[in-house]
């Protein structure tokens, strides 16, 4: 009986994080809440497979992304197909005094390829280490690092951050995957 209460309490506490990750995956509040609902149901049914002492959040995020990508595999492929040219089609968001408006940032984030947005959220916002994020996404740590780097580059491009020429002149010449990252596993 108490195990059920503990499970419910733990899942309740993770609902805000699950919603945030779901919104970053789906790009939509409505679809995000559907995804959270499915994730909670799957997690509840499979809670016996959770290893005590490991990160419940990481376990839940893994379930969520598996659910999302198994449903949206086709859509995801289509996004990745145009990934190479996406940056050129982005509507540049003018920034003032180098300050990025939150709404503009959100727009730029939505325009990232899903795997890059996901990597940025896991590393930059959710507080996971590269190792944990790679585990959640089922990829190599080096892959996670290059996704984060490419996500940052795309954000910079789509936000047309002012003053870049002055303070980041090396930006345009950057390789897609810096050697320091590609060399690591």
């Amino acid at each position, binding site marked *: 009986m108490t195990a059920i209460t503990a499970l419910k309490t733990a899942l309740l506490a993770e*609902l805000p994080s699950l919603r945030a990750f779901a919104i970053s995956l789906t790009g939509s509040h409505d679809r995000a809440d559907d995804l959270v609902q499915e994730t909670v*149901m799957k997690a509840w049914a499979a809670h016996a497979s959770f290893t005590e002492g490991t990160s419940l959040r990481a376990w839940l995020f893994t379930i969520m992304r598996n659910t999302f990508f198994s449903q949206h595999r086709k859509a995801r492929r289509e996004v990745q197909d145009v990934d190479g040219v996406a940056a050129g089609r982005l509507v540049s968001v003018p920034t003032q005094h180098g300050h990025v408006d939150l709404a503009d940032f959100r727009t730029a984030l939505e325009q990232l390829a899903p795997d890059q947005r996901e990597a940025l959220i896991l590393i930059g916002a959710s507080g996971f280490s590269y190792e944990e994020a790679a585990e959640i996404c089922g990829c190599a740590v080096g892959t996670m690092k290059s996704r984060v780097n490419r996500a940052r580059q795309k954000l910079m491009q789509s936000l047309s951050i002012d003053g870049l020429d002055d303070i980041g002149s090396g930006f345009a010449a950057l390789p897609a995957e*810096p050697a320091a990252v590609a060399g690591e596993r």
Partner: protein
Amino acid sequence: MSDPKHASHRIPGLAEPVQAHLGEKLKEFYGSILSEPVPDRLTALLDELEKQERAALAARAKGGDE
């Protein structure tokens, strides 16, 4: 992103202030979602799952007597 141990993974040539600003925006974006109230249907779902689980346990306990 502000974690010093990740500093070596920054893109060379990207100014620290720019990266720091983007990092702050990312956390602000994420934080704004975290602070949104959780929709009732999600908390109601957990109430329902708990109810079903207890009912299933009770049924199993009864069945065990037979």
